[in-house]
């Protein structure tokens, strides 16, 4: 259980546009053990998808570039290997599913061809055997009449079915790591429940580790063992899922947890909301990126960026407030008073 699969150190990704450089990901650390599920949560623009694409080395370059950091995966440094070796890693050892299944499937090829293509790219196998394997994969992800479905095109599938096909393609070579970038955001709740259920089942069967990128904390509670909360390209808090829910330490995490609407939210109660909106990353910024929205920000927050420190066992926080102060300072609804 404790075998380390992925170790990311100080990952930094920059994008150049016009005259300015934007640090989309700024010194992110990730650790993932075998069979574990890590959630990466954050708002749009927080750098969660860029982190995931960087792990696959799929950042479009130019304008993007991994400028710093190490990605140790399964005993190898992925940033040091050749593109040819990397192609072997992708699909074989780690694969990815995306938010919108219609844009990730090729509309002019049958679904069968697309699965067979992946299998043949990584294994020396006859087309017939690959097709048989494709049928098996479709069966595994719960698509009825797989033989018939193999000959159909993506537009003949519904959103949920397409995402199942994507999962089948991603798992075709039995990868050790599956990166899922908002896999259920484009789907209805009932279909989301189906897909999450399927991912849980397949993870147990295949011992795959999963990185789940989402903005929905509900999905994190469903699936993840650990969570990384990202804000403006940095990890602000990283701990186990239960710890994050019970004892969140970063003010941004509080805001995120409190502004989540759940069934228990009283209808008369005003929703706590984080004021303002995320910062523009092309602007130079000293200090904590969250300081402009943080109700507890002090002078040091505005001048010096906090480091990610381990304040408790396996609980990392990047905040100038010490953990004890934070817990004392945490009154229910600090975001109520400031909410517009």
């Amino acid at each position: 259980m404790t075998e380390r699969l992925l170790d990311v150190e100080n990952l930094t990704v920059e994008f150049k546009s016009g005259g300015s450089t934007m640090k989309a990901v700024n010194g992110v650390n990730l650790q993932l053990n075998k069979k574990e599920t890590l959630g990466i949560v954050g708002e749009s623009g927080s750098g969660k998808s860029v982190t995931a694409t960087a792990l696959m080395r799929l950042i479009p370059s130019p304008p993007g570039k991994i400028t710093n950091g190490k990605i140790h995966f399964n005993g190898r440094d992925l940033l040091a290997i050749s593109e040819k070796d990397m192609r072997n890693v992708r699909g074989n050892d780690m694969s990815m599913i995306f938010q919108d299944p219609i844009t990730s499937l090729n509309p002019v090829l049958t679904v069968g061809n697309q699965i067979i293509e992946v299998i043949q790219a990584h294994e020396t196998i006859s087309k017939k055997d690959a097709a048989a394997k494709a049928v098996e994969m479709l069966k595994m992800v719960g698509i009825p009449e797989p033989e018939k479905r193999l000959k159909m095109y993506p537009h003949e599938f519904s959103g949920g079915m397409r995402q199942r096909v994507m999962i089948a393609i991603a798992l075709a070579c039995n990868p050790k790591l599956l990166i899922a970038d908002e896999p259920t955001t484009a789907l209805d709740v009932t279909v989301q429940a189906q897909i999450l259920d399927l991912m849980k089942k397949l993870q147990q069967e295949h011992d795959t580790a999963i990185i789940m990128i989402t903005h929905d904390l509900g999905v994190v509670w469903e699936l993840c063992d650990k969570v990384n909360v990202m804000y403006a390209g940095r990890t602000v808090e990283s701990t186990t899922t239960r710890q994050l829910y019970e004892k969140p330490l970063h003010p941004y995490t509080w805001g995120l947890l409190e502004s989540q609407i759940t069934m228990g939210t009283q209808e008369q109660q005003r929703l706590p909301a984080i004021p303002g909106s995320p910062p523009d990353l092309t602007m130079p910024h000293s200090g904590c990126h969250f300081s402009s929205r943080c109700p507890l920000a002090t002078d040091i927050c505005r001048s010096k960026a906090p480091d990610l420190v381990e304040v408790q066992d396996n609980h990392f926080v990047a905040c100038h407030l010490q953990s004890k102060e934070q817990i004392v300072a945490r009154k229910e609804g600090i975001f109520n008073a400031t909410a517009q």
Partner: protein
Amino acid sequence: MQQHNDPILKVSNLKKHFPIKSSIPFKKSTQFVKAVDGVSFDLYKGETLGIVGESGCGKSTVARLINQLISPTEGVVEFKGTDLASLNTKDIRSARKSIQMVFQNPYASLDPRKTIEYLVAEPLVIHGIGDEASRKKRVIELLETVGLSAYHAKRHPHEFSGGQRQRINIARALALNPDIVVCDEPVSALDVSVQAQVINLLKDLQKEFGLTYIFISHDLNVVNYMCDRIAVMYLGKIVEIGTYKEIYENPQHPYTQALLSAIPKENPFDAKERIILSGDVPSPVNPPSGCAFHKRCRFAMEKCATMQPTLDTVTATHQVSCHLFEAIQQEVPTP
């Protein structure tokens, strides 16, 4: 909720069937997408009615029908006692002053080449309200109402974040002092923290101006928080309608039950039992016979495949369309 007054909007047996174009030119189409198939509800002043359902169930088509942006195949939309379909184009325009819309995608609903001032004043110009100076004043007033400032007026949409753009859309909808605002997934494209800001704003405005909302969403948590009453739609029909308490605490329709159980957990300790629906929503071109839901229903009986259920009364405010409920009613006669 003032259930005793006359409804401000009355929708009865509303239907919209979109023809599917035949591939043979000039041949009359014989197939129809039954996007909305017999929807009826009343809307009372000052309340928020939520419409929930999966994609393709006809929620947005209902919104567009109410506003007469598309004309219904059948059925009546009555606003303050007048049938909107009976009005001519000019009168419909003035009726639309009272029924405004806010759309889902704040990036697509604002013209990128116009200033905010122009965009917010546009409804006033179209309806010929006020002169230029008074319109300018009104725009600033509206921007301040939705939490923006006067200096935002000269800017263009790309200078605003998603949440701010949705505020601009709300300001635009409010420009004509409407009675009803139809919000079609107003917060679905926004981040959680910003979503909360916009929901708070919508609630504040409702209190301040006595607005009536029709709130369309697929997010059941948001609907529960926002709405007084909720209508659950499936394949163009309302399968259950009631107050939010009745829907969430005592759902009668198996589809409502499944929908509610599909909401992700509230916390990592929540051990929730889940009803996983098999399959997908059937095609609205060829909806299943009888009850449209029977192919995915856990409790489907023989009768469900052949006979369409009608809306039955559970309580004065709660109605459900299911044979199962009828069967239970017959077994245990209500006192």
